[in-house]
């Protein structure tokens, strides 16, 4: 087992741990912080998958924007940060059973499947990504801008709401 493998295992462990903490801490603020940890792990995994670009994106957008926005929102509503929620045993066990079975089923399925095989070697460069975005990905690329636009306007509208209607 190479070092890379060991590190990989470590990263995977951190990711899983982050994820577990992100859902299990009762305080939502800790959840958000755990999420950041988890996302960091994911970004590292992306590097393992030869996608440096995506790793950077993950850090910039996910951690830099999304996670921060979440923390922002938590901070915006002061009580939220302090509040620890009471969890219902029934709900927890229900969810746990479903998630466990889901995991088992997914693993079983994934394990049994023969995947399309391709060489891991190839051009992972940003240039290729840029070409793809302006090539076969042009329509989604244009569309996603519309989506973001809609999201922003919508968010403004919802968040502002009161001011404009009155």
């Amino acid at each position, binding site marked *: 087992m190479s070092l890379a493998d060991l590190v990989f295992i470590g990263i995977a462990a951190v990711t899983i741990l982050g994820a577990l903490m992100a859902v299990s801490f009762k305080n939502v603020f800790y959840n958000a912080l755990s999420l950041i940890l988890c996302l960091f792990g994911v970004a590292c995994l992306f590097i393992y998958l030869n996608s440096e670009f995506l790793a950077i994106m993950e850090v910039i957008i996910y951690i830099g924007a999304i996670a921060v926005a979440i923390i922002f929102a938590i901070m915006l509503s002061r009580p939220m940060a302090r509040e620890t929620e009471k969890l219902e045993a029934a709900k927890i066990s229900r969810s746990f059973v479903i998630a466990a079975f889901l995991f088992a089923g*997914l693993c079983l*399925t*994934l394990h*049994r*499947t*023969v*995947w*399309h095989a*391709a060489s891991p070697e190839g051009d992972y460069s940003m240039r290729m990504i840029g070409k793809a975005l302006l*090539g*076969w*990905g*042009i*329509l*989604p690329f244009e*569309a*996603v801008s*519309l*989506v973001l*636009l*809609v*999201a922003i*306007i*919508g968010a403004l*509208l*919802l968040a502002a*709401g009161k001011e*404009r*209607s009155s």
Partner: protein
Amino acid sequence: MTAFLPETLLLTCGILFLCLALGRESASRAAWGLGLATAGSLLAACVWSLGAPPETLFFSTYRIDLFSQGFKTALAGALLVVVIFSREEASGTTGKRIEYFLFLITATLGMMMMTSAADLLTLYISLELSSYSLYLLASLKADRRGAEAGAKYLLFGAATSGLMLWGFSLLAGLSGTTSLALIAQQAPVLAAQPSFALAVVLVSFAFLFKLSGFPMHFWAPDVYECAPTPVTAFIATASKAAAVAILIRLFSWTGLTPALVWVVGILAFVSMTLGNCAALVQRDVKRLLAYSSIAQAGYLLVGLLAGSADGYASAFFYAIAYLLMNAAAFLVTMEVGRAARLDNPQVSHFDGLAERSPFLALILLLSLLSLAGIPPLAGFTGKWILFSAAMDKGHWFLVLWGVLNSVVSLFYYLTLVKHAYLEKPVDPSPIALPARLKLLGLLLFFALVGMGVFPDFLIRFTQQAAGGLR
């Protein structure tokens, strides 16, 4: 490229609305006119594009064929209907008129792109475009209940899109490509893989969410109830049609293994039964219509699981019929609600509708009977060919169950009819119907009867469209 005209038009109008949104308050008065113009010209463009030869655009990620253009026409029609509904400000949209129309347009654009998407990525983005617009539309009425419904819709939808993404990734991993055409080529070989079935299930879950079929139907009653009525109508018509389109595409690409047929069959079974039974105990008409739409999703699935060209054609036909009859039903619901100064008319508000407005009562009668599948209306013919396709594949039990379900459904439809025709109204003042709605009602009337009695043209059209799917 001319075939891309409808989308171009929508995009242009969307930008126009965006500009308006930046403008002054007074601009919102022009919104309706502009919206109407948009929808009208869109419909014209779609009809015009029907004649376009089949082609693929944007490096084979976008597919123009009779099927997609047909559905786009239907979507444009739905948009037109909803815009006509939106002349008066729906409750909760005050001050958000421009955004309202903008979201309508982006949602329609997303749905149109869905019908044409030939690549997983395009499909994903267009789906999200329409979904996000719909989430926003549904929560426009930013009150307690509206926010709750919006949040439920969004979270449910986001979870669903997570599932879908998983499905997409599995498809990509199995086939080594994201092009749907290429996936379709490999589908017969891939069908033996358990992950493939899983992927199809996951993806169809996402589309079931749009179709509001079991088990992804839970958002529907709550959202239908709380969204502004025209928005509910839009969700119930356009979104549904788009879901049918994409389900047809999906099944025609991936094919249906026996196991999947079982799965879809069981989902259809539960959907029909649950929707119809739960509708029996509803008092809120919009909620009732939501459950009815869950049941209708079940019928549609019965046709879809036939997996034959006939099945797809009949699902197409039924989607159009469903669009029309739901539009008619919501037209009446909206007007009754308006007369009662309520956004959520209860069954009792329909009392004496036949005296207050015989025309509305007639439209209601026709739409509900059509929903129940009573001849000689569009819903009947649709159901006939839908179930006929399923029967061809030997799904006699589902067919029988479906028809029995429509008997059950007749109970609540007729209850509504009874309220309209029999009960004495609390407020006997006549309901004045604006001319545009009257005209729309008349059009829907003729469309429902026409599709029921002279369905040949449309059936041939849908069969031609379904024939060109692969």
